[in-house]
């Protein structure tokens, strides 16, 4: 079934807020878009609209955490990580307060809204902050599990969520292990590390590639930080070619995180699929994925080129 990760987030939060009295939810005038309106309905007294003032919302979340609450702060990924970056760094990450920055509409999935609303740097600017954890779930089941998990850590994190409906990768009985990458297909020669909705695109590519006799390994990396370095190293060692795929600039995101492990422990050539250090534009989401080389076709092409 196709469900947006933001919808799964909203539903998971609505469940959690009913049972966990320490949870508060903050939003910046986007409750219907971020889907925190579900938590608002479930528990109106612990849901706060902070208006169109993201910097204040982020530091207010820190204040709630300083006085014993677990604060979820949501808006579009662009503003949650970009406009409020320094509030995340200084008010939340430095004092290690229990705040979950949950940014929806990440990547270019906002489509027609265009570049001002397309967060293609969010993974980079969050993972670079000391102690900041970064989770990028790929489907509704992984999202529900990630939200349940981050509510228990007592630490800050960023959760990257999407606008578009995405097919299930996992099933309702999925259990999230933050210490492990998730190998979805054990193939050979080529390994593809993907995150977010590019996991589904990689699985689509796998079907196309299988028809032509290729069988790449597909790895879903949800916990970009902390990263399962041993697991990544194992994959690097067991494959000739490595590809990373992300709906993000190729600078600073998943591709860079995998490269960091490689550089340190097992140097390899790595092909990075993502936005090639340029902005996208306004258009229907699937047209954007096609134009900017973020669909199954592009992954298939990259695999064939690399093997040749």
């Amino acid at each position: 079934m196709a469900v947006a990760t933001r919808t799964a987030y909203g539903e998971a939060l609505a469940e959690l807020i009913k049972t966990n009295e320490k949870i508060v939810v903050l939003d910046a005038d986007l409750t219907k878009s971020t889907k925190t309106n579900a938590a608002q309905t479930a528990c109106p007294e612990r849901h706060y609209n902070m208006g169109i003032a993201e910097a204040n919302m982020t530091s207010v979340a820190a204040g709630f955490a300083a006085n014993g609450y677990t604060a979820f702060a949501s808006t579009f990924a662009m503003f949650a990580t970009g406009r409020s970056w320094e509030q995340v760094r200084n008010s939340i990450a430095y004092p290690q307060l229990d705040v979950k920055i949950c940014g929806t509409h990440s990547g270019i999935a906002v489509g027609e809204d265009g570049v001002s609303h397309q967060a293609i740097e969010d993974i980079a600017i969050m993972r670079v902050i000391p102690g900041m954890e970064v989770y990028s779930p790929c489907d509704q089941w992984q999202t529900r599990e990630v939200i349940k998990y981050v509510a228990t850590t007592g630490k800050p994190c960023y959760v990257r969520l999407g606008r578009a409906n995405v097919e299930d990768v996992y099933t309702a009985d999925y259990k999230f292990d933050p210490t492990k990458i998730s190998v979805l297909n054990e193939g050979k020669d080529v390994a593809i590390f993907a995150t977010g909705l590019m996991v589904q695109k990689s699985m689509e590519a796998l079907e196309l590639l299988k028809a032509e006799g290729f069988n790449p390994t597909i790895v879903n990396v949800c916990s970009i930080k902390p990263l399962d370095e041993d697991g990544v190293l194992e994959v690097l060692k067991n494959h000739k070619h490595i590809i990373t795929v992300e709906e993000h600039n190729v600078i600073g995101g998943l591709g860079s995180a995998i490269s960091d492990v490689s550089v340190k422990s097992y140097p390899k050539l790595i092909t990075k699929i993502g936005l090639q250090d340029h902005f996208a534009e306004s258009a229907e989401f699937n047209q954007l994925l096609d134009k900017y080389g973020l669909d199954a076709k592009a992954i298939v092409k990259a695999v064939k080129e690399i093997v040749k």
Partner: protein
Amino acid sequence: MEKLQTHTKNIRKNIIKMVHNAKSGHIGGALSATELMTVLYFEEANITAENIKSNDRDKVVFSKGHASALLYSVLSEAKLTDIDVMTYRLINSKLQGHPNMNYVDGVDMSTGSLGQGISAAVGMAMANKLSKNDNRIYVLLGDGETEEGQVWEAAMAASHYNLDNLCVVLDNNNLQIDGDICKVMNPKPLDEKFKAFGWNLVEIDGHNLDEIRAAYKEAREFKGKPTLILAHTVKGKGVSFMENQAGWHGIAPSDEQLEQALKELEAE
């Protein structure tokens, strides 16, 4: 001389010694808020060495985190926490140039980047309302700091959520690093602006102990709105050659200047 004045004198002397020893730090804006914070910690806020680790007490956020020498000095003078103020800004010390809440009991928020502390205090006041915790949240805010847009986002939110458990003390010493606040980027009229944002306003001489006491009392008793105490102060207060000098915002005194400053404070 009343006892509190002995404390303000000791606190001022320590601030100057700390910054001299560290060869860096912010003296002017620490000296301007000394009475305001001394009355708060010694008389108004229910903070004790026993409850210092608890959430069940009043909290104070130094939104102007660069006044850290004042914060450490007052915590030490009030014997609220065990710190060696002379390690201020030195390697391996808990006393960071801008305060870290995880290093020192009694530092209630990590601050330093202007504008963020008041927002965090709004969050703490909202948290107290939610948990029916009657303790109060105090903020020391700089006047130059009000040039940060985030201060007004916080002011709007505090009024929107009727945070009468929040009291912001505005240290209006009229100077910022580059000079007169009205010349650098005029934030005035601060009284009218906060009133327009829905705040209760009390205006005082920020060095007059009785006026400070009365202001905290009024803030505590006022219901339905957050209170701003607009405190008129003198930057560098207590040391003749530092008073009203923007240059003393963030520099350390020489050995001779230290000696002169301590002599003046002792003679007061």
